[in-house]
Structure formats: structure tokens, C-alpha cells
């Protein structure tokens, strides 16, 4: 089926099967930042924004992008880089496989919460698994990033 949607502020028409999930459609479209770490909606690696809300692209059927606005990390490179610089300075990206989904969630949090506490930060980011870093460095980076800005 054809899906008219907006991806990273560009109106596009995508072709997808009925049972195709958005993560695959986006990858096929060339957005290779989309990573998948599981097949049970558990890891958060595939997080994109749908109408600004962080959402699992692996569990969202592609047709539901119809008429909505999808944002991937490719579409917010400037802000992503700002945060990534803090993250990288902390050494808190290791294999980096979880990073795009993690950064999309961090940026969504920044838009959604005002001056979050540490507890609120941890809560908001819990759905992003990371097997490498042990989370502490990511937390230090997020705290630095939010205070800086």
C-alpha cells in the first residue's frame, strides 16, 4: 500500500506491505540509523518520533505513518550532535548500536519535561537498553547536557 507521510520534515510517499513495520520501511527508505535489538518491543533501539512522541518503530505498523510526521536521528542531526558531543566526551558511547534510539529518547525528553530530576531522567530513559556502558556515563552526559542548555 501507499503511505503518504512526512519524514524528517519532507513529505514522501512510501510503499509498504500491510504487515510491514515502520522500522523496516524506514531502513528500506535509506534511514540506516534505525537499528533493531529485539523482536519483542523491549530494547528501545528502534525509537523514532511519531508526531514528536518517542515510539517504537519496530512495533508500529508502517501504514500508521499515514498523515503523520516521522522524525529519525537523521532529521535532527544538529541537536543530536550537540548531545552526542557530551556523550562522547564522557566516553559513554561504546559500541554505539543503541545510540540513535537513545539520543532520540533524550531529545524527546528534553522537549517534553522541564528541568527533570535525576529520577525523572532515569524513568524516561528506562526503555532504552544498553549492554555496553552500564548506563552511568549516559546519565552523566544527560545531566551535563541538560544543565548546559
Amino acid at each position, binding site marked *: 500500500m501507499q503511505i503518504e507521510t512526512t519524514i524528517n520534515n519532507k513529505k514522501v510517499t512510501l510503499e509498504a506491505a500491510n504487515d510491514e513495520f515502520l522500522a523496516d520501511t524506514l531502513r528500506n527508505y535509506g534511514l540506516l540509523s534505525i537499528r533493531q535489538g*529485539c523482536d519483542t518491543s*523491549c530494547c528501545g533501539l528502534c525509537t523514532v518520533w511519531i508526531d514528536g512522541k518517542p515510539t517504537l518503530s519496530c512495533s508500529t505498523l508502517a501504514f500508521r505513518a499515514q498523515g503523520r510526521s516521522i522524525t529519525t536521528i537523521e532529521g535532527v542531526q544538529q541537536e543530536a550532535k550537540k548531545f552526542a558531543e557530551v556523550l562522547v566526551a564522557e566516553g559513554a558511547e561504546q*559500541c554505539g548500536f543503541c545510540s540513535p534510539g537513545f539520543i532520540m529518547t533524550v531529545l524527546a525528553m528534553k522537549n517534553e519535561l522541564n528541568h527533570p530530576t535525576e529520577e525523572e531522567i532515569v524513568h524516561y530513559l528506562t526503555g532504552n*537498553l544498553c549492554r555496553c556502558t552500564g548506563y552511568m556515563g549516559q546519565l552523566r552526559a544527560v545531566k551535563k547536557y541538560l544543565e548546559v542548555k
Partner: protein
Amino acid sequence: MKQVGKGIAKIDGMDIATGRPVYTEDMIPPNTLVIKILRSPHAFAKIKSIDTAEAENLDGVECVLTYKDVPNIRFTLAGQSYPEPSPYDRLILDEIVRYKGDEVAVIAATDEKTAALAIDLINVEYEVYEPVIDFEEADSHQSTVHPENDLHCNFDIGMKKENNIACTHKVQVGDIEEELKKCDVVVEETYYTQAQAQAMMETYRAYSYFDHTGRLVVVSSTQIPFHIKRQLARSLEIPSSKIRVIKPRIGGGFGGKQTGAVEIFAALVTQKTGKPAKIVYSRKETFTCTNSRHAMRLKVRLGADKEGNIKAYDIQGLSDTGAYGEHAPTVFSVAGEKTLPLYNKTNAVRFMGNVVYTNKMPAGALRGYGATQGTFALESAVNKLAKKLNMDPAEIRLKNIINEGETCLTYNGKLLGSSTLRQCIEKGKELINWNEKYPQKELSNNKVRAVGMAVTMQGSGIAGIDTASAGVRLNDDGNFTLLIGSTDMGTGSDTILAQMAAEVLETSIDNITVNAADTDVSPYDPGSYASSTTYVTGMAVVKAAEDLKKKIIKCGAHLLEVSPQEVEFDGKNISATNNTITLKKLAELMVLGIGKQQLVGNATHGSDVSPPPFVAGFAEVEVDKETGKVDLIDYVAVVDCGTVINPKLARIQVEGGIVQGIGLALYEDVKYGKKGGLQTNSFMTYKIPCRKDIGNIRVHFEESYEPTGPFGAKSIGEVVINTPAPAIAHAVYNAVGVTIKSLPITPEKVFMGINK
């Protein structure tokens, strides 16, 4: 030092963080065949008949391969230096299937849906055997997991396959029974450590194709490109010179990718069809059909005098290698190798036992590699001893640990080159506030806070075996290229090795391009495992850079028409008293005109020792006495990894390892049903720690100087996973008096212990 010791950002950090397409799957060309695998529904069976005709006739199916289509040559998938200690007990596809999920047929099709459809069209008849599931019953079981006669071992590893014993191992110094008898106190306990999944975020994946010269190219997310090349050459009967293995960025490995899980299938399909082929494992396949940590049973007897001087200890183990023997002998022996030296004022020590085959997913390498299992057992026993003697557990360790410059019964007179373990323990006590918090404090609301501790050691590389090479080239533009074959899987080793080269060459890492790893280009390296990259490859890099530096000086002196002794090189200029030439100019001249030679430094390095890094780990937990739930409040890890080459990256290594250790301690458990079905095949059932599960983690370094290491460095990658399980178990004991002998420490076990 200008580069070493600096918290430099990773050279690939920004690109991987912001989502650039740099991983294996991102590079697969279009129109690559998709591979799917038909797997055994039985834990143990023989294929009586297999009919692939219908599947092959399906439009879009390129090939369906079974055991009839592969060479009858056994090999191991373990990534180890040749000759591998792991038994050659596999075929690419075998007539006998040995665990639920074992490969039965390989299907390649033009797309995923077709491949999936084809799977359903294959008809297989099995003769089902009684599987060996419980590893404690393996040696007396009526079934033989490996009945075949062509199984081959490169060494005598003590295999008794009719008893399902893959290998046996024994190290003994002194008369253990006699010495234990002499002890005032002997504690004895049997511990169980569970299988653990590596659970790297990027599952296993590879693709392959023939290049313009007809050579087989395999691109894979692997820790061991050179070993993969050798495996492919043997198993597919292709000359090794016709194979090239390339490793892009890796989305985590943790030892899992030290075993060749998928490359063979891609290569096989390309070999048969001549076409590019890819294989990307699902998370379920990754959990079900690759490898995990060896589950072990470890019985410890530990004897001491009244003052708490440990006189003798004995660890008797049983390890479960599952259906195939990848890493079976070595993981097991490491459990003893990294525990027997820890307390060295002994008269006798022993480590012995068997590794058995069962009809479950094979075990393999996972960070810690046996030391994790051994540490849990030994450290739990030491804590038990402290309790029995009514001594402070930290004191008993300070009394007994091996110190720098000392030897131990298993070291054959060799001396420990570096250790600050003593300081690590002291510092850890201070940071956790041990003297005030030990052992516990009751809170209101039925909760209790308590602390616990453990210490551990690992190695740095495999002594006398693993050898790495490195090359540093002065390019025509005055910059350098560092050529290595080690495999940065997110650890930052490419950056650290560049820091070392930059230090020697007195430049900054911006002037160094790191190239790794491609078997056509990289100098030989066994790969990144066994905590070897910083220590072994690092030393090779230092030597190569020094070699190049010498050449630069010699060449510069020649151009300046003075002797090498008369010039100085400061990274930018080669200067004599009244004349100078820039490095850039020198580089330019070396590739211009006649009689020149581009300057390249080369080195190969192996070490005859594997110096241990140390960690003292301290856990503070809160236990809910009504539910048995354990919350980790604080974890302090004090680490001796020799010189810290990059404090930022080292710290993250520690934090990541501690959290993986917390997972082992509290949440993670690879569970099988009675018939051998894996019950934990997703992140829904196999819980790795999430952000809310870990409490606070504090890391501190007590640097030592390892004389055999690059700039005094030892390893850090593995040792950090070992302490959480015993330290948390100890804290739980101190909180509620419940001894956890089998991991993980679930609320139910604690609750049942309290209410026994």
C-alpha cells in the same frame, strides 16, 4: 606523557553515536540473497530423511542445503589460535542434531518472506533420541551426545566421549587432603553459576560475496577475523589465500563474537551459488542458537588456621559445554587459573574437574571466561570463612592476597609483576564506608541495609600463545596509518592503540588513521578477546611505532648528513644542531624519485606472562525482608589495571562490566525446560539490567605499573565483571543471613531462605 593517560574521545564516537551507517548490515548491497535456517525441533535426534524438493521449487529460492551438501570435515567454531584446544566436533550441517535449534538446513532466497516460506516446505523425519539435559547427569547418561568416530582433538584434553566428557582438567600443587586436614577450620560449599547470555545489542550477522578476482569476501560483525578465515578455509575446503574477512564497526560482542556463529552459512551459500548472501540473526536465534556462558557447579573446600591464614584450597568443578565444545577446555581451566594464585600463602591448592556435553545450546566465551564462575565460588567461600572465624572479610583478604613481587604455588616461581590489590581493598573500604556499614543495619519498614565484598583477578592476553602484529606507516603527507588486526567492539581499543602510537611518535591521534580489521590488509592479530588488545596488541603497536621512529630518525639524519645520534625528533621536525627538516618534507621525499623507501614500522609481540589486573568490589544492598527483594544501592569498584591509558574509556569499561555482573548476580538466567527447550529466548524472559536496576556505581583506579605492558598497562575488559555476584551475595548474607549458593539471587530464593 601527552597522549597516554588522557581521556580522549573515541575516534569513531561521533559517527556511531549519531547513527552513521557503519555496521555490517548497513553495508549489505542490494539484491543479496537472504539466508534462513531450518532448525531442529528436538534436543537430540538423527535425520532419517530430509526432502527439500518442494522448497527448492519455490519461486525465488536459490538453494536449500543439508548435511548431504557440505564437506565431511569436523572443525570448531571457537576463535582461538591454531591449533585450537577446543575439540573439532562440528560439521557445518550434521546428520545428527544435538540441541533444539541446531541447524538442519540452510535456505537462501531472494527475499525474507520466500526464505521463510521455503522453511515450511522442507520435510524432515527424525529418529528422536533421549537427550542429555541435566549436566550433573551427563557422565552417566545412557545417551552419547557425540557418538561419531571422526571427532578430533588437537591436544589430549582428556575427552571421554562415551561418558559425554568433553575434557578434563587438573592442576594440583602440594598434598591438598593432607593440608586441609592440618587446618583449624575448613569451610566447604557447592556453588552453582548459571549460563548467561552475552546479549550484545547487535545480533550476529554477516554477508559474503566473490570479489573481482574470485576470492570469497566475508564481512562480519566478529571479534576474530583471522580465526574466521581459518575456520572457513578448513570447513569449506577453500584455500585460505582465497578468503578475505572484513570487520566493520561491531555492535557489541562480549565474547559471543569470539565464536563463529553465522559466517560459515553466508560463505557456504556464496560458494554454492556464486552470489552475494547475507545472514542476520533475530534476537530469538541469538538467544537460542549461538552460545552462552558455561554453567558450572563448583565445590570449594577452603582451609585456614585460627588466625585466618588460608593454608589450602580445593575447587572441584563441573562445567556444561552444551552440544559442542567451543571454549570448553579453556573456559574451565581459566576458572582455576584466575583463582588459585589469588591467595598465595598456601601449602596446597587444587583445581580439577570435567566439562560435559549436553543437548543444549553450546556454551562459549563470555567476558570473564571462567574466572567469573571461579570467583563467585572462591570469594563466597572466603566470605564464609571470615564469618566462621568471626573476622572482617576485608582483613582476611589483606592477610592472604598475593602481593606485587611475590609468587604462588601455580606460578612456577614466576613473580607477580604488579599489583595494588591491597590499596584497592583499602580504598574500597573507605569509599563504601565499610567500617561503619559492615555488616548491616536494620531500617524501619522491614528493610535492612548491608554491605558485602569480593576481590578478583583476570589475565592480560594468553601467555605464550596469542601473538599480535602491528604496522605504522608514514604516509606521503606526513600523517600516519596504524594497521592492526584487533577488533574494537565498542571498547575504544582503536582509540587507545592510536594513543599509544601517538605517544611514541610524539604526535596527536588526529594525525593517525587507524585501519582495522581486514585480513587482506591488517597484520595478523588473533582478535579482541582474552583481555589482550591493550596489553598484547598495545605492545606490538608501541614496538612498531618505535621501529618507525627509529627509521624516521635514521632517515632524517641521512638527509641532514649527520649521524642518527646527532638528531632529535620532536614529532614535527627532525633537527640537528644547525639544520632541520620537517617530518612532512621527509615523508614527501621518501616517496619521490629514485632509491627511496616509504617508512613503515612493524612489530610482532607475544608475552610469556599474562599479568593479572585486579578489582576489589563492594556492594551495598537493601533487602526487603518480607519479599526477599534485593535492591542494589551502591557499588564501589576499585581497579588495578596497571597504567590507565584512557581514564574515560576505562571507567565506562568498568561500569559496563559491573552492570553485566549485576545482571549475572540478580536477573539473568538462561533457563531450559525438561526437554531441552530454551525458555528465555527474548528480552521479555531474559532480563538484562535496565537503568532502574543498578543503583549507583562508583569507580576508582589504583594504578600500578606493569613492567611487561605498554606504558605499564594491563587489561581491564573482563576482570570487571567478576566481583558483583559474590559481593552482592555476601551483602545479602550479611543482611538476612541467607547464603545464596546458586545464581541468580532472585527475591524468591532470598525469601525462601529467610523463611526456612
